[in-house]
């Protein structure tokens, strides 16, 4: 018996395309959950990162805090929050937002820091207000690194969202855990393959996005690091 063949059979089985456990539904849940998590984390991390990057203050604190957050295993945080708030989607949202914040924060402030100081100085000298410097100079020039941070965060959330199924009826992780319970290796393997394909597809999409958001005129300057996303590698994935 070929294990992969049975997993493919499971993926293609029409029975898995109906009802509350349908594959498209699970993929949709997985994506929506990940998207919302990244949005929440962005709403917190981007303004904060821009503030740090523009003023140059609080960088040390941000580095230390992010470093600390990264060392926290997501499974631990997830189960702890789930004990407090109960089974459901709240715990995964909290735990994965914590996971997504460090890479986005780092992307935001390193994006600003990577800009030649003389460019910012010149913008100020010709009479741009601080807000104009942020809007017209720092945000566009910092975009490639911010997108890099978002890419890193999204991939980690997509990967780790699998764990969310441990405490909530959510996403593709359900197949892994229900298969584990019923000793149905085809289901576990099929579910795992789906998560991996989803992650690779998003990786590809982000690689494309990143290629297109580099402001024209600065191409080639910042694209040395996109595949080394050490942003937040400690995700429990």
């Amino acid at each position, binding site marked *: 018996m070929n294990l992969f063949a049975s997993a493919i059979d499971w993926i293609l089985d029409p029975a898995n395309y109906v009802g509350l456990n349908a594959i498209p539904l699970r993929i949709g849940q997985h994506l929506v959950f990940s998207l919302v998590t990244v949005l929440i984390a962005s709403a917190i991390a981007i303004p904060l990162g821009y503030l740090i990057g523009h003023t140059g203050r609080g960088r040390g604190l941000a580095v230390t805090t992010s470093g600390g957050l990264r060392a926290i*295993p997501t499974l631990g945080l997830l189960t702890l929050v789930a004990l407090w708030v109960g089974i459901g989607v709240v715990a995964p949202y909290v735990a994965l937002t914590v996971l997504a914040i460090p890479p986005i924060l780092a992307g935001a402030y390193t994006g600003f820091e990577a800009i030649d100081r003389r460019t910012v100085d010149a913008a100020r000298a010709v009479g741009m207000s601080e807000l104009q410097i942020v809007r017209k100079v720092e945000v566009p020039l910092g975009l490639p690194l911010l997108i890099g941070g978002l890419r890193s965060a999204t991939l980690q959330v997509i990967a780790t969202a*699998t*764990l969310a199924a441990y405490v909530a009826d959510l996403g593709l992780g359900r197949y892994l855990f229900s298969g584990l319970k019923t000793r149905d290796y085809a289901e576990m393997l099929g579910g795992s393959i789906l998560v991996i394909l989803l992650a690779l597809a998003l990786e590809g999409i982000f690689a494309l996005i990143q290629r297109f958001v580099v402001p024209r005129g600065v191409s080639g300057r910042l694209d040395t690091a996109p595949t080394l996303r050490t942003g937040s590698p400690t995700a429990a994935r």
Partner: protein
Amino acid sequence: MTWVLANLGLIWARTLDHVVLSLPPIVLCFVVAVPLGWLARRYRLSRGIILTGAGLLYAVPSLPLIFVLPAVIGTSLLSPVNVIIALTLYGIALMVRVVSDGLDSVDADVRQSASAMGYSTWSRFWQVELPLAGPVLLAGMRVVAVSTVSLVTVGAVIGVQSLGSLFTDGFQRGIQAEIIAGLVATVGLALLFDGALVLAGRVLMPWTRRITAAKPSAPVEVSAA
């Protein structure tokens, strides 16, 4: 706190399990990534293949990979070997890029003067390029160490014992102190590994001390995206 005091033996046993699961990937990924990183830098063709492969491998989530591995290598689902291999692959994916970048960061003048003095390609790599790439490699290994320690906990959901078992057990039995103990122990172990690497860096690379003191984790942060 009472739970912790009553279960020190259990915590210690799980900590040892955790070390056994996390040390091999950290060491193995370095051993494999150095030659791969060198190969990635050496030829244009191998560079594209190896770095793209590493990038894709890095995108593969660990937990599903742990489920897939038995089908590929024939281990049993509950075998700790799956966790070790999955995390080794993850570490390789990250370190190949770091090694390649680190070797790139070696000053071309230094490389040329080393050749001019009569180093062979082989001896130049070991005695000049690799040591000079050291600070970048160290930064990468610190990331690998901390993330590996954290990722090992995931194995607990399929029953591979580690400090992560304190999370699953504490969750199922509703013991908050157990989960917190697991969190503290995991973070503590990560910091211990990290500290050991920093110390090793100081001893092995005395010429970097001043710079290291000035900008501790800068290389890792810079590469954050």
